[in-house]
């Protein structure tokens, strides 16, 4: 995996709380057998009207959202299903970081394994980011900080191991495979 040390972009804001993974990628697109190409269906039922045309009112369809790779989202982002198609779809749609005050457990775990930075900030800082879409943000994964254009800095929470894997480009399956001897011992003793 490619190391990820910084994400730098203007922010785009989806302020809704509890954006679930059915919302991020509806189940009818889960019949795929690959990881690729899901970006065009990310937030499908928000992005497109029932006649298939893009909804100009949806944030991600607006001109100012073009090129934004940092999504600031309402509390409890990614709740619901365990589908890893959700982070695959976001990455494929150009989103490389999600910032919220709370991120659902399975989504966060899936996101971080794919190099989608899923991080949480304190409530007051979350409210500030929600109120200020289009902010030029620079996320420093190593330092654990989000730098704002005015020089301000917000710390963010990220598991130490996930941070290490992201910044060093360490693949978690490779890490697990190296535990072979310990797994063998466990199997001989218990399993």
């Amino acid at each position: 995996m490619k190391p990820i040390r910084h994400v730098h972009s203007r922010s785009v804001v989806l302020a809704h709380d509890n954006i679930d993974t059915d919302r991020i990628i509806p189940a009818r697109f889960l019949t795929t057998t690959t990881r690729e190409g899901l970006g065009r269906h990310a937030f499908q039922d928000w992005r497109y009207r029932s006649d298939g045309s893009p909804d100009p009112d949806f944030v991600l369809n607006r001109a100012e959202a073009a090129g934004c790779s940092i999504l600031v989202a309402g509390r409890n982002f990614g709740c619901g299903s365990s589908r890893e198609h959700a982070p695959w779809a976001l990455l494929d749609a150009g989103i490389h970081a999600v910032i919220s005050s709370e991120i659902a457990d399975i989504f966060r775990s899936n996101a971080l394994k794919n190099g989608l930075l899923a991080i949480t900030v304190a409530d007051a800082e979350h409210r500030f980011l929600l109120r200020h879409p289009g902010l030029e943000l620079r996320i420093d994964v190593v330092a654990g900080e989000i730098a704002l254009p005015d020089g301000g800095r917000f710390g963010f929470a990220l598991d130490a191991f996930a941070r290490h894997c992201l910044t060093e480009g360490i693949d978690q399956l490779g890490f697990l495979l190296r535990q072979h001897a310990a797994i063998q011992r466990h199997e001989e003793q218990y399993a």
Partner: protein
Amino acid sequence: MAGRTLLDKIWDAHAVAPETVATPAVLYVDLHLVHEVTSPQAFSELRTRGLRARRPERTLATMDHSTPTLPAGADGTPPFVTPEAAQQVRTLRENCREFGIDLLDLDSAQRGIVHVIGPELGATQPGMTIVCGDSHTSTHGAFGALAFGIGTSEVGHVLATQCLLQRKPKAMAVEVHGRLQPGVDAKDLVLHIIGRIGVDGGTGCVIEYRGEAIRALSMEQRMTVCNMSIEAGARAGMIAPDDTTFAWLRGRARAPQGEAWTRALAHWKTLHSDRDARFDRVVEIDAAAVRPTLSYGTHPGMVVDIEASVPQAGNALQQRALDYMGLRAGARLAGTPVDVVFVGSCTNGRLSDLRAAAAVLRGRRLARGVRMLVVPGSAAVKHDAEQEGLDAVFRAAGAEWREPGCSMCIAMNGDLVAPGQLAVSTSNRNFEGRQGPGARTVLASPASAAAAAVAGHIVDPRAYTIEEAVA
């Protein structure tokens, strides 16, 4: 030293390497369940890396999400919704063959929804770690297992190493005191609990359901409760095994037999939280206060009991939910017209659920204009229901009796609720568009769903169930 929780006991027995500040624990997985939707990319990853399945006998596969619930045509081909869905099922078949994994295929008498068949076969056992690329894996916690949903990358991790990298979740106790009232179901209880703690109330936690009301539940009811733990954001839900658990498991195909059973039983009896175990959080619930409970909004924490009014929207999002649902704050949910009724899913697709729905429908007809789908959770449930004549009850009432699968719960196999229609559903999620674009979902128990089908609108199910009990 403080006593240990059930979570502590299972965790400690499966920690291949302990958690440190720098690294998560390496947790051994006893049983890995696989289905067609979340596994193809994991098998591809193994193939790319030249890896084999480390312990293929610890993985059990079936197909349930993309599979049609209408019977195969004259040529034996199941009516898949798209060629992609058919391809996904074929891919699972090929992957299982290549990696040596036991597959309960479409023609197997043991197939069904992955969370229905695991317990049914006795593959789900107390004290196990159980994972599946599916968030409703929490169902298996009803047996005192630590069971949780994982992503596709992790499906690959388990296939290749039989392990996962995991931080230990916090332990939360939900104590349910007293007894449920007659006519109140486990589904009502779990919706009530989610309403209390919220859709993120369990984030970062494993919930252990405890107390008199939980002990009094059947295994099927316990599965319904644990199934929806994820809807409160919890990693898993669990219930300590007891005589109800042991009696249910005894003699099942994959449960231990003979001397192995005796040994297993001795171990299983140690699987409970110690008296002095400490929980990170405790929530107390009064079972007697629970009424038939249904969802009114667009997440499973927006629930109301059938006697109460739809609450006022506290913010713009809640108002948006009410607008989407076409409901008015202050009005009763009862009386809301219903278009579709769905009985099935890993939450409520077991035999006891079908019996509860059939008890309401027996001798009655669906209200004019209501479509009702009854989808058994497994081939065995279907068989047993037909042996009892439940299929005839459903058909006579005007409902459709289908082949087993996830069906209209996730609506990816073609079983859809049309835009704008309102469905009373025994499934687990009422997100916008979950049962089809523009579909409106009201989550409910099997009795509430069946009662709505007969009345043509949402109604207190006790008008049907209690009367039956008295008569």
